[in-house]
C-alpha cells in the first residue's frame, strides 16, 4: 500500500526537530497539477491563526487562460515564501523582523513599530498589517466569539480587543509563520494537513531523506520571481 504522505511528513518533521535549529531549513513544495483552487488552505490558515479582517497570510491566485473553447483555470497558493535573502528584513529599521536560523522569517510583536516598510518591500505581497479590525461590526454591542479568541503565534497567547487598540499585534506587521507554533509541537502547518488534493509538501529541505527535499528536486520545479534573487523556501511544481 502506498505510504500516506502526511504520515511520512510527520515522521520527517519529528526527525528534523531532533536536529539543532540552525541545521534545519523549513521549506515547502506545492504541486500545481494537484491544486484545484478550493482555498481550504486559505481558510485553514485563517482559522489556525485567527487572523482578523485585513490580515491574510495565505491566498490562492487564480488565473484564467486561453480562449473559448480552449479555456482553463490555474491556481497558485501563496503563503509567505520565507526567502533566504528576504527584502523585508533588510529594511526593518528596528530589526523587529528577521530570519531565524531554521529559515522562517518572523516578526517580534514586542518590537515592531508599525512603519510598514516591510509591506512595501515584499515582492510577493505576502505581508499584512493589523489595523485593529474585528469581524463584528463596530456598532454591535457584543463581539462574536471568534473575534475574541486568542491566537498562538510564536508560542504565545495573543488576545485582541477593541477597547485595547494599543496592544500588539494591533499596529504591527503580520505574516505567515509556517505555523511555527505547531511545528514546535510536532504538527505540520495547517495548510499542509488541510489540502484535499495532497498538493502540498513540507519539511526540512536540508534532510535529503525528507519528502519535501525529494519533491524540490523535481525537473518540474519553479520559484516565483527568481530574477530578484530572494531565494524563496517555497517552490512550485508546474
Amino acid at each position: 500500500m502506498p505510504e500516506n504522505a502526511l504520515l511520512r511528513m510527520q515522521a520527517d518533521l519529528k526527525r528534523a526537530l531532533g536536529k539543532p535549529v540552525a541545521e534545519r531549513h523549513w521549506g515547502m513544495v506545492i504541486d500545481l497539477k494537484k491544486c484545484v483552487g478550493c482555498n481550504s488552505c486559505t481558510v485553514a490558515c485563517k482559522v489556525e491563526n485567527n487572523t482578523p479582517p485585513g490580515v491574510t497570510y495565505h491566498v490562492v491566485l487564480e488565473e484564467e487562460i486561453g480562449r473559448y473553447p480552449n479555456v482553463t483555470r490555474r491556481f497558485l497558493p501563496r503563503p509567505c515564501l520565507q526567502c533566504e535573502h528576504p527584502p523585508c528584513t533588510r529594511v526593518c529599521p528596528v530589526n523587529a523582523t528577521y530570519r531565524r536560523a531554521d529559515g522562517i522569517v518572523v516578526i517580534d510583536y514586542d518590537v515592531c513599530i508599525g512603519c510598514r516598510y516591510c509591506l512595501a518591500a515584499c515582492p510577493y505581497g505576502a505581508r499584512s498589517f493589523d489595523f485593529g479590525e474585528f469581524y463584528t461590526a463596530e456598532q454591535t454591542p457584543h463581539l462574536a466569539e471568534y473575534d475574541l479568541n486568542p491566537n498562538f503565534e510564536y508560542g504565545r497567547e495573543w488576545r485582541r480587543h477593541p477597547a485595547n487598540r494599543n496592544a500588539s499585534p494591533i499596529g504591527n506587521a503580520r505574516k505567515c509563520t509556517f505555523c511555527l507554533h505547531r511545528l514546535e509541537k510536532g504538527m505540520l502547518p495547517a495548510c499542509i494537513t488541510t489540502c484535499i488534493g495532497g498538493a502540498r509538501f513540507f519539511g526540512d529541505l536540508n534532510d535529503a531523506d525528507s519528502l519535501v527535499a525529494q519533491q524540490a528536486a523535481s525537473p518540474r520545479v519553479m520559484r516565483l520571481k527568481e530574477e530578484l534573487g530572494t531565494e524563496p523556501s517555497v517552490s512550485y511544481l508546474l
Partner: protein
Amino acid sequence: MTKRILIILVLGLIAVGVGLVGMADRLVAGLLHVGYGAPVPWALWVVFYIYFIGLSAGAFLISSLIYVFGFQRFEAAGRLAVFTALVSLIAALIFIAVDLGRMERAFLPFLRPNFTSPLAWIIWLYTAYFILLLAESWFLMRRDFARGKQAGGLKGTLYRILALGTKEDSDVARARDLKVVRVLGAIGVPLAIAFHGGTGAVFAVTVARAYWYSGLFPIMFLVSALASGGALLTALVAFALRNGYARHRDLVIGLGQLLALLIFVDALMEIAEVLVSLYGTAPAHFIPIQEQLFGPNWYIFWFLGVGCALGLPLLILVTVGRKSGLWTGLAALVSAIGFVGIRWNIVLPGFAVEELPGIGRSFLEPHWAYGLYVPSPMEWAVSLFAIGLALIIFALGYTVLPLEKREA
C-alpha cells in the same frame, strides 16, 4: 503681529480645531479608520511627510547658499530660510509619527537600529539635522536675544531665556557667530543631501516596486526638495515679510529666477521618467505612469503637478516674473502648493501594480483591497491638524523671533 501673520495664525488655529476630531480618533482607535490597507501601506500621511521634509531640505540648502557659499543677494532671507526649514521638519516628523502603527515605540530606532535599512539611517540623520538647525538658528539670533532681553514683558523674558547667557552684542561678535554658522551650514549641506537623498533611497532600494527601483529616485527627491523648498521660501519672503515683494524686490526676483531653474530641472526629470516608462511593454513600468496620467486621479498629475507645480510657475517666472516681485511671489506660492501633487505621484503609483498577477482578486477584506485608494476623512482631519500646528508655530515664531535681518 502683522495682519498677514495673524491670518496665518488664525488659519492654523482653525485647521487644528477641525483636525482635533481626527487626532482624537487616531489616538483612541489607532489606524482603524484610515482609507489605506496592506496593498497600499503608505498613503496620504507619507505623502505629506515627504512633502514637508523636502520643503525643509530645500529651504535649508538655499540658506546654505547664503551662509556657506556667500550669495549676498539672498542674505535678507537667511534666517527665515533656516526657520522655515525647522518648522517644515517638525511638520514632517508629526506626519511620520501619526503614521506609525505603534507611535509609542518611535524611539526604538535609536535603541536598536538596523543600519541595512535606509529608514534607520534617515531617522538618525534627521535627528542630527534637527540639532544642527537649532544650533544654527541660535547662532544666527543670539546677539538679538542678548540685545533684546532688557526689554520688558513676555518678549524680554523669552529673549533672556533664549540668549542662554549671551551678554555681548557687537559687530565683531556677530561676525564671529557668522563664522560658526558657516561651519554649521557646511556640515549641514552634506547632511541635508544625505537625509533627503536617503529618503529617496527608502523608496529606491525596494526591488519589489519597479516604479521606485531606480538610482534616479534619490536624485529626483533632491531636485524636488530644492524646487519645492525654494518655492515656499520665495513665497514667504514675498508675502510673509513686511512689504516683502516690494521692499525685497531684488531678493524675491533673484529667488524666483533660481526657482525657475530648479523647476526646469525637475520638469526634465519628470519628462524623462514618463516618456521612458511609457515606451516599453513592461506593465510594472508603464502601468504606474499610465495610472498617473490617465487614471481616476489624472488631475493630480496634470493640474497639481504639471500645471501648478511646474508649468504655470515656470511660464510666469521667465516672463513677467523677471521684473515683478509680486508675480514671482504668486508663481512661487502656486508652485509650493502644487508640489503636494508631485509628492503624491511619488508614493501612490508605487502600489499601482499587483505584486503577483491575480492577487487583487484572490481575497477581499477591509484594509486588504487592491484598487483605488481614497484618503478617509480621518486622514484628512489628522493632516489638517498637523499642518495647522505648523502654521501656528510659524506664525508665533515669526512674531517673536528676530527673523528679519537687523537693519544697519
